[in-house]
């Protein structure tokens, strides 16, 4: 027997099911954003030179936007996740 405190947390309950479903929805939304970016770069790369906000081109705006979106979505996800209910 190992004298340590690391044990797998095996509880699957309503909160973890809710969090998992929420995670899948968020994942699919972000995947669409990311796939759109990759598709434009691959097949319509010239669009990336188009000026957008404040003189910045689409490449800069979309690229920075993906990073910001990941941060914002992560925070929202954390706020919406449910904690396990104590027995």
């Amino acid at each position, binding site marked *: 027997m*190992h004298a340590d405190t690391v044990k797998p947390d095996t509880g699957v309950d309503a909160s973890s099911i809710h969090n998992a479903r929420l995670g899948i929805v968020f994942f699919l939304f972000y995947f669409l954003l990311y796939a759109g970016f990759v598709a434009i770069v691959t097949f319509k790369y010239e669009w990336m030179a188009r000026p957008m906000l404040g003189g910045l*081109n689409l490449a800069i705006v979309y690229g920075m936007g993906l990073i910001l979106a990941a941060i914002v979505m992560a*925070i929202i996800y*954390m706020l919406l*996740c449910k*904690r396990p209910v104590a027995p």
Partner: protein
Amino acid sequence: MPQQTSVLAIVIFLMFVGFTLGLSFWLGRKAKTAGGYFAAHGQVGWFVNGIAFAGDYLSAASFLGICGMIAFYGYDGFLYSIGFLAGWVVALFVIAEPIKRLGKYTFADALDAKFNSKGIKLAAAISTLVVSIFYLIPQMVGAGSLLKALLHLPAHNWHGLDLNHALGVIVVGGVVITIVVTAGMVSTTWVQFIKGSLLVVFCSGLVVAILANGINVNGERASDGAASVTVAPGQLAATRVTPEPPTSARQVTALEGGKIVTGPLGPSEFIAELSDATILQWKKDPAAGMWVGTEVRGSDQLVPGGYFTGIRSPELVKKLDFISLMLALFCGTASLPHILIRYYTVKDAAAARKSTVVGIISIGFFYMLTLYIGLGAMVSGAMDPADSNMAAPLLARTFGDVPFALITAIAFTTVLGTVSGLILAAAGAVAHDLIESVMGHKLNDHAKVGAAKWASVVVGAIAVVLGILAKDFNVGFLVGWAFNVAASANLPAIVMLLFWRGTTKQGMIASILVGTFGSVTWLLLTKEAFANFYGIKTHDGYMPFSQPGLVTIPLSFAVLVVVSLLTRKSNYRIAV
């Protein structure tokens, strides 16, 4: 390029390394049990773990490789930043909580939680070792470049081997092995926490300095006294040819409106001014033995296609390399063993989730900074034409010896932090997965920790040798390869275990092995491997593109599904 050794830089560097080692020894006294050595007793706070995620993840590739690639090739380096961060979306939304529930010390524990199969443990351990070594190589390459720039020793070559680079690799290998052998996850966590914090803080300061300095003209127009040649699309003027290496790989030769300096700029103003500037790009013509400088518009640096030239081709096969890389980056983060083990250092699934969010915020912010650091290096007039990995430290040097020393030291601790995590993951694969689970040699805590320490030495030594041989690679490119292997080997098994009841142990074993060896075989047969590993620069390789993910990730999924369907009758179903 002519530079002098900075004693101040070396002193600050040694102070950082000394502090890191001292912290390691002090904290290492607490890691006596296997639980302490591999998982820090599962008691790391979520905030510390989140910053440690950043410290673990932001390696030489992120700081040196990406900034160097942006400096040399423009926007395409930033594509790595976008892809690397996007991978955390998969980790947070899909993997974090379930993987925490399934495991104990290693990611192999998680995969095997339902089956108790030696085959799964063996396959997962093999993939952990392969991915860890692939990831270790670019870290060692980065470390070699850093020490070479720091020490400025006279060039020494032995049978084509750069001895200064080799010295840097050996030094970092020795320091890291010492850290891992003496301490384990507790020390590694705090080293990564400190490193992650320092990296974000100092890079923020560097960007503030870049913006405050603005953009200055630091090169002569190619048209000044140079012979005229046919102007190709994307070029502005004539080329300049010289036998001597230029002082910088990129030079600003003109600004909008005839300005010589712009003065302080805001973030969007900096991009706008660079877009309107004229940049002189220097490249070596090996056949002629001459350096050729070609003027381009700054706006050409802010769109894709500078490095991934295939996206501008009408042929689909040439575009596939880029698609494959972006897929591998998206899928790779959640598949990296040294990231996954960090989920076992926190107490529960909620802490795993929160620490991932903290990691995403700090990593995302850092990746935003990389665009400005890379572009700042491009216009700094201080880029070493022979080494794309040193763009960021040399940029810092333009602000003085102290910033250079700090950034070099932080970059070195960046390597230490990541390499520590990688070697620890590999050591866990050997001691916990291979020796105890697969070979059946039950070890007490003391013996298990001892076995892990010996494994650390061996893995570290292998990484040192390969890091010396891979000197000519850009570290960001090499890490992209590691992501390909990780995503191909591990992600299908993790995802299908969590979401498909029909997954069998045979399916998982086959998937991991096919993904691992399929992707590695592909990589070793590419044009880049022939040029930079085998030294045969004229060989075109045997693969149509350099990033295998587009083929090997779906292949690994397909193998898992097919083998699981063929073997499902002989196995009980898993209940997710």
